């Protein structure tokens, strides 16, 4: 309960700043309107008018909240206008991409740790892959896969995996290499096989590192899934909501989608964190 107070304080501060920024950014439009109509407006009038514009530069928090309410609680989740519906579309691509990325990341890490050739060759490529902007690669992946008849969930999941495998590789390599000389010597005195050393020493030792990576990885997966929805002209998913919002200048819709994405990300990271806590506690390694 003690941790809730600082969190609330920060949230309150953000909301205050947000309102301030909304007044500041949206007031120009109010002044322009007034000038065109040839009337004077008082400051309090300006503030009032910055709060409820149709297409504000920056929607006020209560506008976004209202939009969120309208598109989640008041719509059926099968509706094209339900944010829950769109969130689910994005979430499914995120989860599939996260699974692929994590699996690939772990496999690569195991290869890197056990095979000298892979150690020398894979890491530079993995790093290079992350220096290319995902926004440049995403359309290509979509187009290429589309040309071989793969559409829908999978291309988005692959883009999502492309972002999430990297932190998993990095963390897992570090984790698998975390046992010290003494632990490895111990295994040697028992004449343990490489497979036994892997399953009984390297893998359990890597768990804290893996979970730290998974938290980064799941957030990266969500970003990947959203980016994957942008170039397709998709009509479903949070990315599609962002895109159509910006086409039509629907800033309230954009911000609602952004907030939904943020809530989704926080939820996903929270779930990974929970699994981490439970697993490490069971392993006796809770920090």
């Amino acid at each position, binding site marked *: 309960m003690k941790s809730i107070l600082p969190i609330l304080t920060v949230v309150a501060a953000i909301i205050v700043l947000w309102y301030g920024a909304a007044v500041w950014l949206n007031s120009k439009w109010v002044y322009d309107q007034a000038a065109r109509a040839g009337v004077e407006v008082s400051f309090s009038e300006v503030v009032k008018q910055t709060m409820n514009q149709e297409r504000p530069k920056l929607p006020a928090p209560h506008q976004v909240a209202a939009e969120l309410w309208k598109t989640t609680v008041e719509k059926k989740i099968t509706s094209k206008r339900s944010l829950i519906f769109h969130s689910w579309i994005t979430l499914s691509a995120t989860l599939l991409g996260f699974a692929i990325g994590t699996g690939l990341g772990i496999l690569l890490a195991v290869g890197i740790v056990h095979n000298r050739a892979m150690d020398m060759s894979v890491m530079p490529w993995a790093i290079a892959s992350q220096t290319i902007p995902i926004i440049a690669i995403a359309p290509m992946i979509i187009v290429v896969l589309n040309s071989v008849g793969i559409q829908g969930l999978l291309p988005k999941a692959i883009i999502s995996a492309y972002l999430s495998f990297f932190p998993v590789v990095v963390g897992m390599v570090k984790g698998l290499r975390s046992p010290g000389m*003494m*632990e490895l*010597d*111990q*295994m*040697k*005195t*028992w*004449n*343990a096989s490489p497979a*036994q050393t892997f399953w*009984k*020493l390297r893998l*359990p*030792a890597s*768990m804290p590192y893996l979970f730290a990576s998974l938290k980064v990885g799941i957030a990266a997966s969500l970003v990947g899934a959203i980016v994957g929805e942008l170039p397709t002209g998709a009509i479903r998913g949070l990315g599609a909501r962002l895109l159509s919002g910006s086409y039509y200048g629907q800033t309230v819709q954009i911000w609602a989608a952004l907030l939904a994405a943020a809530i989704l990300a926080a939820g996903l990271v929270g779930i990974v964190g929970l699994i981490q806590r439970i697993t490490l506690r069971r*392993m*006796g*390694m809770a920090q």
Partner: protein
Amino acid sequence: MTSDAVIAARDLGLTFQTNDGPVHALKDVNLQIARGDFVSFIGPSGCGKTTFLRVVAGLEEPTAGQITVNGMSPDEARRARAYGYVFQAAGLFPWRTIAGNVKLPLEIMGFTRAEQEKRVKKVLQLVDLEGFERKFPWQLSGGMQQRASIARALAFDADILLMDEPFGALDEIVRDHLNEQLLKLWARTGKTIAFVTHSIPEAVYLSTKIVVMSPRPGRIHDVIESPLPRERPLDIRDTPEFLEVAHRVREGLRAGHAYEG
């Protein structure tokens, strides 16, 4: 070489090639350890005690001379799981319970599950840790962790026990207690024990044979056969015989140091 020499080293040498030039960790080491011996290695830091143990264990390759363990090369002996090795730090795996840690070598060696349970129970009893099976290492004191690591080295019942300063980090009282327990265990099991220590009383109290080493290059300065009986209550340490052996060890250490410079 006598036929019952469990460990026999002849003209053994090990030189590490380092960036600052060669380090002669061991030179011209000749030593016979008989079955059932309790041998302590004592000497100043860097005289090659750990290195010798590691050579016996097949963790380090000698660069000169010969060594056999149970009549085999150290590496063959390692593969035959001829010894249990207790490192200076307990080195328990934090994700395994005490029982799980003791079980680890048994799992690796392919003991049946029933046999694993039986042995874990037995060795934990041997080191006075019954009731702590389900605790994790961090829930135990340093001394208890060290006992668990000894139990782990005993679990697969190798004839040879190699111990590198196992009680180095513990206080005097706990150390006394563990020394006593170790002697009992040795008497009960008849194992051959090679034991590294920095403490003269500990070496004299435990050993049938004390190897005094000197550094740079690491070599054996003196080998003292203890005249003390195998049965040793703690207060044997106040007898003249005990003090005489301790005196000889101390002289040896001093003379070994005097070689330097």
